[in-house]
């Protein structure tokens, strides 16, 4: 049996007295499109930073494709692609120069790197700004470039922190198509996003982190059944479900993290 793409055991990260990630256990099977969700400050970015080697865990173990991240970080990094929170771009390079730099850092030869860089720039519709430095790109363009850089070496596992934030509908469609194609080719994608509609449409499996603890994990159907069972067990539930209506991911998420309370509040002075 193949090793899971991502295997997390007892992962914990403390910042002084604050425990940002608290003993997380999680497996992501190879080939899954995995959504990692949580409210602001829940510990999503901290977790993804630890998974990509940007942050050392306080406790716990991470294995990517069966390789221990702590013992052999270089071997793990060779297999993964990352779009972190800050996009990890070098602002004073052009898009083409940056992709060539990234390709070489992943050990690709000059010719292959140049060829893939050109294809990626065309695919991401970034090839019409040949002289522009990345620092002069719009946020959406920077995001597309960061995504291009994350896949130039053909990673087997892709970690994406909020990949659709600040990206227009056209670019978002391009990115989604590319990610779907990668899944089709057997890659694993681990993404965090606040846009639950996108996660619902793309991801087959989801985990929800809340206040540093993993509060739900499984396929969307498994999560849906769990919440439905819970709601039907509570008489006079706030949001009754119609017999043939499926719960949306947003409803599942709000139910799990308890985000319905504020809906009853009103700002009386608003028109």
């Amino acid at each position, binding site marked *: 049996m193949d090793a899971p793409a991502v295997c997390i055991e007892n992962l914990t990260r403390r910042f002084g007295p604050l425990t940002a990630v608290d003993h997380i256990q999680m497996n992501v099977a190879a080939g899954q499109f995995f959504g990692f969700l949580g409210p602001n400050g829940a510990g999503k970015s901290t977790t993804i930073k630890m998974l990509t080697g940007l942050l050392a865990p306080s406790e716990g173990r991470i294995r990517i494709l069966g390789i221990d991240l702590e013992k052999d970080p270089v071997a793990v990094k060779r297999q993964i692609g990352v779009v972190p929170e800050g996009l990890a771009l070098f602002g004073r*390079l052009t898009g083409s120069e940056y992709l060539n730099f990234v390709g*070489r850092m992943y050990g690709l030869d000059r010719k292959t790197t140049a060829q893939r860089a050109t294809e990626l720039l065309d695919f991401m519709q970034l090839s019409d700004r040949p002289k522009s430095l990345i620092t002069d790109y719009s946020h959406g363009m920077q995001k597309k470039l960061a995504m291009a850089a994350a896949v130039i070496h053909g990673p087997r596992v892709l970690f994406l922190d909020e990949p659709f934030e600040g990206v227009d509908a056209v670019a978002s469609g391009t990115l989604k198509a590319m990610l779907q194609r990668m899944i089709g080719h057997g890659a694993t994608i681990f993404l965090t996003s606040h846009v639950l509609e996108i996660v619902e449409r793309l991801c087959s499996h989801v985990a929800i982190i809340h206040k540093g603890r993993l509060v739900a994990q499984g396929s969307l159907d498994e999560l849906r059944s769990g919440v439905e069972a819970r709601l039907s067990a509570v008489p006079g539930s706030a949001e009754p479900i119609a017999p043939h209506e499926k719960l949306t991911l947003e409803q599942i998420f709000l139910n799990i993290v308890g985000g319905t309370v504020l809906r009853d509040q009103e700002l009386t002075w608003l028109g």
Partner: protein
Amino acid sequence: MAGLSAPPAPAPSSEFRGLSNLRMFAIIAELRWNLLRNSLRTIRGRLEAVSRAFATITMTMLSIGGAIGLSIASYLTVADHRFSYLALIFFGIFIFWQMYPVLGSAFSTPFEFGNLLRFPMRFSSFYLLNLAFGLLDPVSLVCILWLFGVFVGLVLADASLLPWAFLSLFSFGVVNVLLSRAVYVWLERWLAKRRTREALGLIFVFMMICFQFVGPLASRWRENAVPLGQYASVFHFANYLPPGLAKMVLLDAHRGDQMFADLSLVALAVYALGIAALLGIRLHAQFIGENLSEALAPTPAGRQEKVHVAWDLSVLPAPVAAIFEKEIRYLFRSAPIIFTFVMPLFLLAMFRVVPSHGTHGASFLVKAPDWAFPIGAGYALLILANIVYNTFGADGPGLQFILTAPVRLRDVMLAKNLAHAAVFILVTSGVLIATIVLYRPPSLAVTFGTVMALLFALPLNLAAGNMMSIYSPKKYDFGAFNRQRSTGATAFVSMGVEAVVVGIAAAIFFLTRFLERVWLAGVIFLPLAAVAFVVYWLVLNLAARRALDRREILIAEICRT
């Protein structure tokens, strides 16, 4: 239903026409005060506030000194009836007032007045706020102080000029405040571009450097100097410009030609009204929605990206070659850094133009040209500390990529050091050429000794730089001209290392020179260089391990926005 506030506050009336100008100023003043107060919450913020306070005090002292100087100069021009010199003073102030804010914009992010427009603000408030911003600009305050100095000098020289001096200088000041804002607002769109700001910064610093040459050149050719009065005659054509008109008011008043003095004042008022109208047109366009600061249209679609192929550096492993190329591109794409690299050449040129006649006036290097190369190369090493001791500083968010890439940090640091060493070799070669052109070719013994001394000094600096880059990192913007200081710890260590290295090198050179065996210096440096290389290699491995341990601190500092 739970309300968040009770009782409900009344909604703004539909008749609300915007806040009064005074209320708007008070709100903005309060906003600035809160920003300042909040900036003092961190140690860095407090240190910056102290640094700013010192800079303000220094600038104020210098400005007061300038005002006193201008006061004396104005007094003498009137007392000696040489009004053409007054035009020179006014033109000097005028050029400084108008040019400095534009060139100085390279050193700061422009304040986006357009951001205020989302609030219910009247056009008059917007206009007046813009003027207030121009009036409270440090350059304006300095120039107003200088005009006050001129005023005092004029009145002391001829008390009957008091009303005319007041009217003339007041009008001149108003014209300048209006014009500086008008120029800035019209150029704002252009200045919003990063490249423009960088180019202006380069021009500004270059002008400042050229200014340093004025003194030595003037004293060098002072015997052939043309009396300044002859230059002053050139300004006659400019009598119809604001500085010339300000002078004409005073000249005509001094002569008793009140009608002509009045005419000149009216002309100044016409200038002020015309400029105010131009400013109004532009600000009104901004007020009704045109964004003057938005970037210019992007390159039209259709131009395809030229296929870029990485440099062929097959002698190096691919990741090392990639980092090397990136570092070189970064360094040579940064105007402030390029400017730093040419500083040793300026230094050599500066010492060269110091008068060489006589015995006491000649520079040390003119008297002992053989030492121009070692001193220039030593200076090049000193300025390189800026990047060597903060090697990740300019990477910004890209540092995250380096940390997630399958590359050992040892290789990353090695590649960066190789790039810095290559640049150092280039700068030192420039120093050698400048020495040959400006002085004379250094002797073989001095050249050999210098090269060996550098082979000793460079690895030690790189080793110390690598450690300090990890233990005391500081975000560094290669595109900004404003002085970006390294951390106190880095400054302390780099100065210490330089002091020790330069001290050892100087001692060896002086000793061998004293013994009249300068060639021996190179031989002494050779084993020292070998030891320095071993130290570098050991520290490189240690630094790479420490960098991984301290990655969170590095990311927190370097990747912050």
